[in-house]
Structure formats: C-alpha cells, structure tokens
C-alpha cells in the first residue's frame, strides 16, 4: 500500500541517528517484526528512489510505528529534516519478516550497527520467557535504544569494537560464549553480512536454527524490478532470490554468504 501518513515526532538519538514515529493505522495493524517500509524522502527527482527502512517498533494500540535511521546519504539527510506534523509518502509494510514461534522458550537477537533496529520488535512480539539481546556498535557514542532493548529482553549484552562500552570486540564473541552455556530455540540476526555469516557458523556447531535479515540496494521494493538479488540455495543448486519480496528475512541455511 502507498500511503501519505503523518509524522508524530522525530527525535535525534545521537549525532547522526534519528527516530521517526509515523502515525499509520494500516501499517501499525498489518506490520510484523522484520518488515520494512519504502519511503519517498524528497520531492520529485530529489533522491529519486524510495529508501527502504526497517520497522523498528510498532505501537498497535496508538496506531504508530517507529523507524530509526542513520544519516548516510542524500535520502536519509532529507528524511532527517522532517518535522512533527509533516506528511510523509510511505509504502508498506513490505517484505517477509521474522518467524515467531510461540513454542520457543529461549531466543536471542544478535545485531550490529543499524542492524539492531528491526530486532526490537522481535523481542516485543516474542512470548518466549528467555530473550537475550546481543548488540554491537563501533563505539560508545553510537550506542542507541539501550533502554528499549533492556525493557524487552531478559538479558542484554553489548559489544563495542573499541571496548569503550561493554565487551571489547564483536557480538559473535559474545554469542560463542553464550551458546556454550545456554541453548537457544532460535536466533535472529541483522547486521553486516560478515557478522551474520560468522554468527550462523557458530550456531551451526550447536544445531541452533537462525534467521537473518539481508540488505541489498533496491528499486521498486515489491518484487517487480528484480534488482535486489541475493544468493540462496535451491536444492543442490543456487538461484537469486529478491530481498524485497522473498526477504528481507531468510532462514539462515537458505542464504549463501559471499
């Protein structure tokens, strides 16, 4: 669906990270964790394509949803300039989100950088009694949404590349240590592809299933233009699937990391 919705508020989380809350009865009622919206950031040909951005949090009662984005280029710069009350052109919810199996008792979300955002709603929606969140950032100043992740998980572990906050090193170090002591029914990944690849390898040794949210440059966002290809297993062969329609979330065993 393409909708013109109203921005409830926009909040600066750190020097280049913004949280935008959008009022949308349709998207808040239909969306699930891991899906995304495709946003027209500027007028006309300014930042020509829409920008696909993961849904971070859904408030079904108040009919709003949140996106969190880093200012990286033209599109996100324009997006950061919106104000409360402004109208915004949104397509969504799009794609396939994370699978939430209510029979699971123990789950973990593992995210790095901007990849942490879609994982918050997994924690919010999952009924499992044990929910671990392992989040990685480059440095302390970039740590965001710590309180929210704390609120919806039973254990929160943070790693920074430079050791300025939490564990010094990568989320995969923390995950390796964690799975030695605890079993998970499912692990959800979102972040840099090397992080996900390493993480999936760690879990494979323990036979723990996982899902990964994949990123790729998109065109239409709905599966028509076929540009956002990613390599997936098809029997003994492989084929290109499309992140916008077949994903962004895939079973880890289906993805071929390059």
């Amino acid at each position, binding site marked *: 669906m393409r909708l013109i919705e109203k921005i409830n508020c926009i909040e600066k989380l750190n020097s280049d990270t913004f949280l935008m809350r959008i009022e949308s009865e349709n998207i808040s009622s239909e969306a699930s964790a891991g899906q995304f919206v495709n946003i027209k950031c500027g007028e006309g040909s300014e930042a*020509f394509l829409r920008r696909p951005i993961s849904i971070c949090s859904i408030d079904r009662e108040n009919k709003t949803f949140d996106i969190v984005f880093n200012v990286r280029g033209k599109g996100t710069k324009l997006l950061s300039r919106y104000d409360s009350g402004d109208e915004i052109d949104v397509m969504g919810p799009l794609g396939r989100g994370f699978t939430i199996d209510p029979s699971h008792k123990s789950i973990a979300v593992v995210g790095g950088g901007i990849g942490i955002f879609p994982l918050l709603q997994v924690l919010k929606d999952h009924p499992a009694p044990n929910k671990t969140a392992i989040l990685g950032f480059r440095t302390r100043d970039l740590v965001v949404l710590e309180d929210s992740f704390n609120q919806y998980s039973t254990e929160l572990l943070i790693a920074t590349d430079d050791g300025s906050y939490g564990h010094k090193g990568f989320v995969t170090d923390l995950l390796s240590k964690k799975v030695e002591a605890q079993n998970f029914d499912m692990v959800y990944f979102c972040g840099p592809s090397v992080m996900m690849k390493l993480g999936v390898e760690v879990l494979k040794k323990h036979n723990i299933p996982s899902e990964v949210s994949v990123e790729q*440059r998109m065109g239409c966002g709905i599966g028509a233009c076929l540009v*956002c*290809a990613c390599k997936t297993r098809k029997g003994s062969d492989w084929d*290109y699937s499309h992140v916008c329609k077949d994903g962004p979330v895939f079973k880890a065993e289906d993805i071929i990391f390059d």
Partner: protein
Amino acid sequence: MSRKINMAVSFAGINLKNPVIAASGTFGFGREYSQYFDIGRLGGIAVKGLTLLPRKGNPPPRIAETPSGILNSVGLQNPGVHAFIKDEIPFIRKYNTAIIANASGNTVEDYEKITEILSDSDIDAIELNLSCPNVKEGCMSFGSTPQGVKKVVERVKKVAKKPLIVKLTPNVTDIVEIALAAQDAGADAVSLINTLLGMAIDAKTRRPILANITGGLSGPAVKPVALRMVYQVSKAVKIPVIGMGGISNGQDAVEFLLAGATAVMVGTAGFVNPYAWVETIDGIEAYMLENGVDDVNELIGGLITD
C-alpha cells in the same frame, strides 16, 4: 456536458484500449503491481524480458541511483519462456490488457526459436529485445548495427505469427538507420528507447557501484534524449513507433505522442510512484479534455515545428 473521448489506438494488428503500456523489465509479469491498482486499466503489459531457458541474471548490486534516474544491470533474470507460458500468461489473461512478450537471445537461432514458441502462445505481440545493455552475448550486439538488426529481424519475421515490435538501443551513432533496417527487415513496429549505457562510481571506495560495472540508465534523466530519438525515428519510418524513456505522467506521455509515438511505455517512474501507470492514462485524458482533443490519435505526430 461530458464529452466522450477516444483513447484507443491500433497499430500493426494490435488493439490497445489506451496508449499506455507497462515497460518490459519494470513490471515483472504484473503480479506485484496488481496489488496496487487494476492492471486491466493498462493498454498493455510488456512482460519481463524472456529467454529460451531460465536465466539467473547478474550479481548484485544491480541498481545505482543517479541524478533523476537509475542505472540497472539485472541481466535478464527470468524464468524462461516455457514457465512464462505456463504460469504467467493465465494470470495476465484474467485482466483485459494486451500481452506483449519481450524476447531475447544469444544467437539468431535463439531469437528464431523463442519467436516460434511465443507465436503459438496466447499473447498479442512480440517485442524483440535487440537492445539489452547488460548481457554479454546477443541483444545489444545485434541491435547496434543495421546489419545485425536486419539479420535477426529477417529470420524472426519468417517464423513470427504475432505482430513483431523491435526494441531499439539508443547506444548507437544513428538510431534512424537502425530503425530503417528493422523496418526493411519486416518489423511491424519499433519501440524505443531501451536504456542508455552508463556507469556510477563510489569515490569513497573507488569502486563501481554496479557489480557489472556498467548498466542501463532510465528515468526522467533520459527523457530529452528519448524524445529526440522518437521524433527522428517517427519522421523516417512508415511503421508505428512506441515511445519510452523517462515518462512519469500524462504530460510526458503527450509529448511522446506529439513527437510521433503511437503508444508509450512507462517503467522506472513506477518504482517511485506505484500508480504512475494509471496516473499517466488519467493525465492523457485530462490533457485531452482541457485541450478539446476528442481522439488520442489526433495527438500522434501532432508536433508543430513551423
């Protein structure tokens, strides 16, 4: 008083209820956009480029945003002509719109064979893709010389039992001689322009953005070039011309009709606005009502140059 206007166009034995066709490669087989609007409102759908066998296409990234447009290098990913006939034609046929099968090949024999297969299927026309810039063999290598075009089109025309549209590349010195070669070889119509070969570089990483290094440029950025080529070709050939390149709304479409196009194709605009196709149809109607034009055919080639 409401006036009745005619939007229907006919050419080369193809009847369209309006001159707006979804451009090949931007619309899949219609399934995705059918969730956004009634695709039966379209004059026609030029489906995703087909080949004899399924093709995986090029590695990603396959798209780069550029000023007022995009570069793509999909590389003809498609399920193959047989899967199209079996799985996709029955779906599109549920809607009242013309089916134009866009066909590609590596060799003249491939083009012949796919044309034979498509001729026996339930489609309304074949659009011969002699212009894809993103594959190594066939396609643009045939389409960039009059001899190449003549060779393929002559052979294909002998086996084609459906109207044959030849899609031309703008990546040539003189598109008019290419269009004339297509006409002389028996093409029933030509469509232009396919994408303009281009590239995008990320200065920070010093790498090309597209994995394929080069790609095809489309979107509003190419419109003036497309308009000029449609104008030049329309003046030179006797067969109908289908115009495309950066059309985003009714006014853009009217410009192409005035330049000599009998029908238009809309593609890239839909990535930004999923209703671009229907808004283009509505926009042409609105233009006609405002300007006292009763029949869309009056606009075709109606450019005033004195």
